[in-house]
């Protein structure tokens, strides 16, 4: 199977039953993407595929051949942090750190969705020129990413500090 992962072309032999998550973790050593439920309920495995967020546990690797996959390891180079990663540290948007890579990848995908004016269930005005980057929108859109340590306040603060618009 061939993929582009974090900008690098990757070719790997794998069982066709292998999920994208297990491919990353077990075969490619990219253990930054986490397994929390293996059934699409917790969001810890969130990665970006061509810029859109998906649950890697619900994706068979074989389906994603030829696609550009970005994991937590690919958000910044070896020495620096992505601004959202730095904001998570500054705003204490985690405790144990296990759901954190998924929260960060999910938030990046979420910000793109807001940029594209994709509505959510809490969007009051579906005809608005620009959907507000507000507290409820962010919380609703991030609700697929569970944090059992309860760092939700810090996560939202980090997202707002990084992506929030002046209108928020």
């Amino acid at each position, binding site marked *: 199977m061939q993929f582009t992962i974090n900008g690098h072309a990757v070719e790997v032999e794998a069982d066709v039953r292998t999920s994208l998550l297990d491919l990353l973790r077990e075969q490619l050593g990219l253990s930054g993407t986490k397994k929390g439920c293996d059934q699409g309920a917790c969001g810890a495995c969130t990665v970006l595929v061509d810029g859109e967020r998906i649950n890697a546990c619900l994706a068979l690797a074989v389906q994603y051949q030829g696609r550009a996959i970005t994991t937590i390891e690919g958000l910044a180079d070896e020495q620096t942090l992505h601004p959202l990663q730095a904001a998570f540290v500054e705003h204490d948007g985690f*405790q144990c750190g296990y759901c954190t890579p998924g929260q960060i990848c999910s938030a990046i995908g979420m910000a793109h969705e807001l940029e594209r004016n994709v509505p959510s269930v809490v969007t009051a005005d579906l005809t608005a020129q620009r959907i507000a980057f507000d507290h409820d929108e962010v919380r609703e859109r991030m609700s697929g990413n569970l944090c059992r340590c309860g760092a939700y306040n810090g996560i939202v603060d980090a997202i707002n500090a990084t992506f929030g618009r002046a209108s928020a």
Partner: protein
Amino acid sequence: MNAEQKPAPSQWQPGVTPDEVMHRHGMIGKPVSRLDGPLKVAGKARFAAEVPYEHLAHAALVHSSIARGRISELKTEAARAAPGVILVLTYQNMPRLQNPPLFGSAPKAVGASTLPVMQNEHITWNGQPVALVLAETHEQAEYAASLIEVRYDVLPAKTDFDAAKRQARAPDTILGEPPAIEIGDAEANLQAAAFKVDATYRTPRYNHNAIELHAATVAWQGDELTVHDATQMLNGTAWTIAQLFGIDEKNVRVLSPYVGGGFGGKALWDHQILAIAAARLAQRPVRIVLSRASVFRIVGGRTTTEQRVALGATQDGQLTALIHTGVAAMTPYNACPEQFSFPARHLYATQALKVAQQVADMDMMVNTFMRAPGESIGTFALESAIDELAGQMQLCPIELRRRIEPSKDPVSGLPFSSRHLLEAYQRGAERFGWDQRNPVPRSRRDGEWLIGMGVATATYPYYRMPGAAARIKLTNDGHLTVSIAAHEMGMGTATAQSQHVAERFGLPLEQVTFELGDTTLAAGSLAGGSSQTASIAAAVIAAGEQLIDQLLMLATGDSPLAGFKRDQVEAINGGLAVRGDTTRAETYAAILQRAGRTALQCEAPAPEPAELQHYSMHSFGAQFCEVKVSAITGEVRVTRFLGSFDTGRILNPKTAASQFRGGIVMGIGLALTEATEFDPRSGRIMNPSLAEYHVPVHLDVPEIDVMWTDIADPHSPIGARGIGEIGITGVGAAIANAVYNATGKRIRDLPITLDKLL
């Protein structure tokens, strides 16, 4: 060390002399960002399932589908023949092991139960592992496990709590405390009281559901065993595994530098033991990662309870009777009676007190400690009842608590080491705007939403666990490293302890390293009971005294410190100085360099927690909550929350705020959404997934305000009492009380789901 160089007696005597560091305001109290934060946000912190090994084999489990009986037939041929399969492990080929030493039965015993691990054909709970498949890949192991067929001879099982509680028994102890206490005649006083409440409260089973799945990567090298585990009890795990397998504890190394959430659940369960056995038989390193369903099946959770709280009060709001009794589901094989009666033993002044706890034996996965075991659900019952009493008396519930504030511990009679509950209430009430509450239920409305406010007391004991030691290494560049087999599962252990160590030894943060998570370091105590901060601190004090003695022995000749004893110097500015004359000082680097030493190393155990013999030591708090309840659907939303705490000194306000908030968030789940559904017919857990067990998500959690008194406890190390668990206590009652204020409906049965409000 000769007789003349004998160290001075310990300066810090627990419960007698205060730890002077508690009043320093350098690094302690600074909002330092997590030192391991950059690793965690980059996905570089390596958890137990992520340690690479060559020729790693992957394990998958098969679970019993009955609650009690015996295996009559095991068909494993198809699994053995499946591609990639290395080994199928059942009771028939499992190595013979000792039974686990039960948690608490010996200093380092952490067995979850006394049940043998896959040693025979007997089934004692629905979900018990009956086979383990080892294969070259995860996919092959899972597939092969699906091919195993098991038949059972089924025996009748106790799987109905309502039936089991009719045969409830009093356990020998409740975590070392008597199961029942009676002071005066509480029942008679209740009958004669001017005001009385007498109600039954029910709480369901809960599961920790840390997002990291339980996992271990294990490898044998000859007789030496390495276990990369996700655990909050490193040394206990190593010792207990050694007993099970009949090997020397020194040959077992357990590492757990990062734990992806614990909350009481990351302990020694069957999966590590089975993986270790499989690794030995297969002579391969083995990785086991439980599925989420397996976590529900073989990791215990918080048990179900039925509690009675009865309160009698005089016209002027003095308690004449406080009764808290009830029963928790347990098994004959473990000892976690869910200490829900503990808060009632310490919280309020009463003429007569009656507490009594029983357990009902059931055939189920053994229950265990889950964040504030007992106190979380005990405060739900007790603090709901206090609210009911205040309502009946038409008294502000905070005023009622002011009138029943005790001057000493109601049971032991000991003085409190430090208790500022009323101050926490007052400060919290001001910031929350408690005066905006209308005491008449169902009196605030915004469209379909009924709005209400509630308050409840939070409380959790101070514990300091025995067994911890600290190893200190000081190098001649003035860098100091403290090494303890301590645990990091989100508390910010290394960060807060680095601040503590920097403060205690007068060093900047970058000159300090705190190592944890490995049994080759000095022994740690378990991370439970909100005890780790104090347990580590006491060990660091003891080792630090040795270090200073060693430094002063080196500081001879023309050293400005020559001839001074430990109690005459203090650690400051990267070295030692004479107390009261900081011009007579020498840096650590200078002391070592002059003596021609590259490093000094010492190790010492913490003294026994004698402070608990002198004082009643507890943390306190006031939980304020505002909810809105839909008059149409019964949906409850928490709109505002404030926790005001009195927990001793706070080492790091940034990480502490997160821990308090995290407890409150788990309390929101306890109150509103979470329950492990246990089928009373089959003993099977019916919602073993995060899709059907509803932990709070982003949209369920408002901005949570937290504040604290920051009053140092004069009798604990650094003045700190531990903050991991108190956040969840009182939350259930604060929400239930707010729901009552909003709707006029008193829900005494958790979780408060919308069907109960329609």
